[in-house]
């Protein structure tokens, strides 16, 4: 049941998260202990999981859930992020990517995930077994050490000299217990026995177990060890577990939603879990809210509509409920799921009755809605807002208000659901069940007191136990008080005790709530102490824990340093949770994520905007043309002897006209720039792919490579980013595969074992320059010479005369380099011609510099945008041609005698170098205007980065911004035009593709060579 409407958002969101995750994962390999990094990864995968769940993507959720579990272990320090684990996580990430692209294409999840999920589970389970054998501590010992810690805690409580630091270390202590618990919970049976034992032990222990945070993490940790993780997704409500411990665990988990939704966290270690459930819960509530409004409207309409319509409405209602049921089931709210199921059944029966034309009682819709409302009082707000439009029964609101009188309760709203639900179901069987479920909660009184110190730190506000009690209280005043009575009577004495102490606890709680609204530090220093005093007085109720153990304090202080480090993490994540805590609180912006205000726009829309700007540029050129024409006209009128007075009129007009054009020019320039900027994206998106590539390629080649990325914030047209991704990837692969030497060789050469690749991007006027530098073995010039000679490209003497740069350029000649012959020794050149072609397609240039044994530097120079380029317009005969300015090196006026002929080609000497000259008129078979007696020519020197030639033209028209427009495809074939543009006079001017042009001339040259050789050979034979 994939929600297609949400799929698009999911695909986009997941893509971002996955990217973030990959970057972090790769960094993780080098810094396996970076908690912040782990948190980032966790957040990413968690976001994916939450969203996938919401949309209804089973495979993605299963896989992300398993990865999440593994990450959790890493975060808690249970596991080292070995390269094995990182690799599995990377694989999982890749699989999710595949699934996402599946979804994008086919809207279904085609790829299997089971193998990876199993792999993840293997990693999850593995070290635990090891721990088991090594530790082998008897259960009893563990329990007693529990006790010890507990007493230490109490001792700590008694300590008068507590400040916030020690409080934090106290938290740390708890974490220890927590991890201890986790270690212990190796498998289900153990958990089972453990729980039973705990039950048998004294109350302290029991209460310890019921400490919500710990229990929660404990429970969550154990989940993955059950037969399958997918039970979470089980839609048919049958989260049946053969193991009784499982059942118990589930019930408690379910029973304790408060902790999972606790707005603030107790410490850095349990935080992930809370965050996890928090987010899920938020999604859950959000969905519930939407659906509730739907259902409510539905119910209102039901009462007024006729039977056929009713049937439709009921079908709608079932649909809504089904999705609600699904999410409730996912949240493991059994009762709620059951509640929905009942509801659906009711509706189905009603529908049947309706179809038989019988009147069916539909009051149950209202009733159920009311119940649901009481379960989730936060729905109230929605109802009130909905009331304006739909005439909702006032009494419904009243009910909600009754159950919602307590402000504390309002804050803990989400926590109520389970118990309320139990009550509301109104069936004694439920209560009975609840009683068994409440086994754990019944031991709450003790922990409340013991755990309260935690609450003093501002990060750790509402202990869920409180909420339970608040619920109980509220329940007294609520409609369901009767049920509650039954319930409370059935609970044992400890619950009664709980009820007694609940009053003061409540005070503490509300005081805390007040304080959280103030500065956190302030709380730490002032309120905390007051609260502690409160807690101390409460503590006296509990006679269980009195023993003093200073050891715990010592342990605590040693952990202080670590806690300090983790503190910022807490602070960062706290605000994200607060919105749920209190609806009235101003929305806080999460400190971690920096949200840029952005909107997603269809790329086509931007393209069309770009086209229109292009048109504007053409129009502007036309106006400029008009200005020149007017001044010509002026000149003409002057000659024809127009009266000075009349002439002045025209002159004034011409002046104003040109002013207006200039203004238009400025505005259109600014517009063009802005539109261009819209298309600009930072290179980050592209560069982020490369760490992964380097990692993979280096691994397969058994090389050590570190990649340094510079200037990733440089912005570039999105289209170009996409176009250069492949060439760049290829070049980096080359750099690792052929450039960087194996570690041994590097050491021998006196280099560090790890090769370095530097990827750098920066702006250079209207271009972006990307440099890929490796400190590898460089390009072997001799090899290139040999090869060039072998394929008869040039003679040995010619080659010897060539500069190294010219020679290295050969690697980019098509057909010059073949992988087999070159890669084994000097490397490079594999597919470089393809790279060059791709770059040239973008009007870019590529340059290679290499110092043998030291480094190789590949330099790409690419125009910032494709659509509008500055260009030089030249004339040949009657036609004008456009040469991209990117390729123009200089324009020269050349004397005829500067040109000499060399091997049937015209050449000229330019600053000591020979440059071949080609006549455009000849190349294009055009009629040139030049006369034979002309002594001077215009030559445009064009450069492709690898080659330099001169183009002889009739005249130079000028420089302009031109809009590239495509030509019909059959005009591109074997042609040297990259498009056309419309120049000022409205005529079409073809844009010369310099690369193709040079290729064309080169082929001609080579052909010529071959023909000559053939001829001489034939001559030879003839003789």
């Amino acid at each position, binding site marked *: 049941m994939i929600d297609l409407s949400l799929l698009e958002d999911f695909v986009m969101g997941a893509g971002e998260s996955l990217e973030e995750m990959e970057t972090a994962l790769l960094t993780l390999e080098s810094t396996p202990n970076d908690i912040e990094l782990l948190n980032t990864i966790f957040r990413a995968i968690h976001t994916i999981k939450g969203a996938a769940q919401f949309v209804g993507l089973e495979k993605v959720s299963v896989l992300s859930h398993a990865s999440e579990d593994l990450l959790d272990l890493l975060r808690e320090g249970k596991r080292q992020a070995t390269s094995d684990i990182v690799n599995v996580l990377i694989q999982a990430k890749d699989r999710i990517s595949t699934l996402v692209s599946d979804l994008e294409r086919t809207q279904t999840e085609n790829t299997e995930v089971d193998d990876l999920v199993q792999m993840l589970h293997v990693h999850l389970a593995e070290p635990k077994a090891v721990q088991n054998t090594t530790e082998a501590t008897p259960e009893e010992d563990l329990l007693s050490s529990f006790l010890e810690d507990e007493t230490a805690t109490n001792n700590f409580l008694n300590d008068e000299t507590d400040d916030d630091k020690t409080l934090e270390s106290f938290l740390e202590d708890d974490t220890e217990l927590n991890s201890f618990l986790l270690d212990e919970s190796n498998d289900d049976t153990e958990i089972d026995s453990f729980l039973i034992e705990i039950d048998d032990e004294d109350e302290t222990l029991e209460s310890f177990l019921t400490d919500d945070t710990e229990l929660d993490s404990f429970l969550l940790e154990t989940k993955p060890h059950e037969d399958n993780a997918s039970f979470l997704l089980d839609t048919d409500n049958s989260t049946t577990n053969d193991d009784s411990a499982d059942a118990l665990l589930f019930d408690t988990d379910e029973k304790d939603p408060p902790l999972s939704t606790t707005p603030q966290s107790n410490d850095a270690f349990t935080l992930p879990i809370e965050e996890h459930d928090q987010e899920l819960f938020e999604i859950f509530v959000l969905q519930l809210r939407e659906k509730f409004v739907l259902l409510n409207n539905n119910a209102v309409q039901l009462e007024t509509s006729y039977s056929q319509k009713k049937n439709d409405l009921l079908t709608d209602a079932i649909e809504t409920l089904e999705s609600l049921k699904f999410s409730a089931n996912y949240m493991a709210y059994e009762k709620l799921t059951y509640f929905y199921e009942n509801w659906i059944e009711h509706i189905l029966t009603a529908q049947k009755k309706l179809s038989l034309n019988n009147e069916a009682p539909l009051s149950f819709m209202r009733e159920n809605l009311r119940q649901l409302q009481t379960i989730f009082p936060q729905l109230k707000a929605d109802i009130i807002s909905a009331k304006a439009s739909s005439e909702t029964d006032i009494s419904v609101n009243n009910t909600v208000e009754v159950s919602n009188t307590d402000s504390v309760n309002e804050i803990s709203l989400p926590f109520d659901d389970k118990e309320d639900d139990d009550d509301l179901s109104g069936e004694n069987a439920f209560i009975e069940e609840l009683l068994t479920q409440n086994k754990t909660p019944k031991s709450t009184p003790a922990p409340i007191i013991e755990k309260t110190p935690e609450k003093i730190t501002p990060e750790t506000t509402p202990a869920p136990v409180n909420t339970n009690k608040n619920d109980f209280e509220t329940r007294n005043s609520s409609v369901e008080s009767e049920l509650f009575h039954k319930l409370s009577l059935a609970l044992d004495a400890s619950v009664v005790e709980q009820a007694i102490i609940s009053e003061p606890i409540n005070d503490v709680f509300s005081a805390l709530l007040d304080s959280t609204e103030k500065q956190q530090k302030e709380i730490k220093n002032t309120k905390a102490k007051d609260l502690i005093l409160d807690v101390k007085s409460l503590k006296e109720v509990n006679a269980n824990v009195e023993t003093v153990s200073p050891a715990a304090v010592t342990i605590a202080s040693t952990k202080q340093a670590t806690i300090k480090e983790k503190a910022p993490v807490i602070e960062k994540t706290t605000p994200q949770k607060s919105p749920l805590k209190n609806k009235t609180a101003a929305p806080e912006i999460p400190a971690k994520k920096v949200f840029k205000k952005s909107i997603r726009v269809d790329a086509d829309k931007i393209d069309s905007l770009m086209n229109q700007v292009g048109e504007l540029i053409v129009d502007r050129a036309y106006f400029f043309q008009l200005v020149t024409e007017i001044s010509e006209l002026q000149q003409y009128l002057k000659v024809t002897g127009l009266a000075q007075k009349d002439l002045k009129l025209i002159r004034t007009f011409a002046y104003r006209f040109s002013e207006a054009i200039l203004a238009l020019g400025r505005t259109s320039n600014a517009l063009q720039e802005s539109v261009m900027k819209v298309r600009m994206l930072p290179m980050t998106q592209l560069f982020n792919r490369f760490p992964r590539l380097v990692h993979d390629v280096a691994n397969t080649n058994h090389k050590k490579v570190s990649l340094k990325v510079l200037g990733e914030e440089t912005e570039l047209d999105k289209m170009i980013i996409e176009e250069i991704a492949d060439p760049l990837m290829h070049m980096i692969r080359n750099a690792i595969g052929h450039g960087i030497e194996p570690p041994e060789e590097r050491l021998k050469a006196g280099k560090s074992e790890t090769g370095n690749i530097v990827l750098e991007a920066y702006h250079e006027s209207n271009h972006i320059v990307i440099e890929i530098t490796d400190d590898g073995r460089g390009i072997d010039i001799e090899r290139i010479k040999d090869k060039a000679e072998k394929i008869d490209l040039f003679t040995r003497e010619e080659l010897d005369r060539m500069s190294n740069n010219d020679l290295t350029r050969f690697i980019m000649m098509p057909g010059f380099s073949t992988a087999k012959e070159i890669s084994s020794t000097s490397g490079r050149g594999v597919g470089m011609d393809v790279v060059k072609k791709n770059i040239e397609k973008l009007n870019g240039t590529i340059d290679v510099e290499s110092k043998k044994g030291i480094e190789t530097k590949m330099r790409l120079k690419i125009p910032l945008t494709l659509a509008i380029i500055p260009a030089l317009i030249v004339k040949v005969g009657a036609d004008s041609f456009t040469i991209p300015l990117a390729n123009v090196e200089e324009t020269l006026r050349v004397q005829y005698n500067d040109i000499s002929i060399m091997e049937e080609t015209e050449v000229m000497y330019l600053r000591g170098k020979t440059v071949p000259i080609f006549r455009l008129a000849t190349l294009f078979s055009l009629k040139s205007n030049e006369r034979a007696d002309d002594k001077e020519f215009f030559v445009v020197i064009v450069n492709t980065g690898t080659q330099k030639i001169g183009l002889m033209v009739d005249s130079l028209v000028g420089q302009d911004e031109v809009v590239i427009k495509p030509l*019909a495809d*059959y005009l591109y074939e074997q*042609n040297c035009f990259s498009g056309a543009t419309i120049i000022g006079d409205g005529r079409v001017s073809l844009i010369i593709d310099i690369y193709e042009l040079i290729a064309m001339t080169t082929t001609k040259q080579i052909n010529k060579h071959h023909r000559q050789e053939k001829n001489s050979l034939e001559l030879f034979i003839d003789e």
Partner: protein
Amino acid sequence: MTDNYSVKDNLSKKEQLIQMVGFKIDNETFGVDILMVQEIIRAASITTVPNSPEFVEGVINLRGSIIPVIDLRKRLNLQPNNYKQDTDWILILDISGRITGFIVDWVTDVIKIQENNIDPPPEILVAGLQSQYIRGVCEVEGALLILLDFTRILLVDEMKKLKSAAFDSEQNTTDQH
């Protein structure tokens, strides 16, 4: 549009009237389905494209779009024109999304013919034209109207082949001197 079509569908297919734009090259009358004709222009300044197939006259600027123009006479290998007109007629056709201009001698008028009057192209050459480019022939007022298959005329592969041949010969000629 769709309504029109559905009305047409109701008619017997044989009796459907189709409208053709008639045009002439030399003395032959040709027809093209009016739905394909985007517009008819005269006197556009054509920019020649070097190294393009011989029948590609060049490109024109049609309100900001650059449209290739094909000399239909050359494309269909008809007899070269003896005299040069002052201005050409250019039929701008939308051939399955590819906007292309075709130079013809002159455009006559819109001809209505019945679908069942169209005969398949004859085996023999009609007006020196290869039958592959002909969709059918139809007798209108005693004269033969040749319905051209422009999709075939603009078949890209074929054009490419023609072009590379042209390119090669061009190259050979340049090489020779």
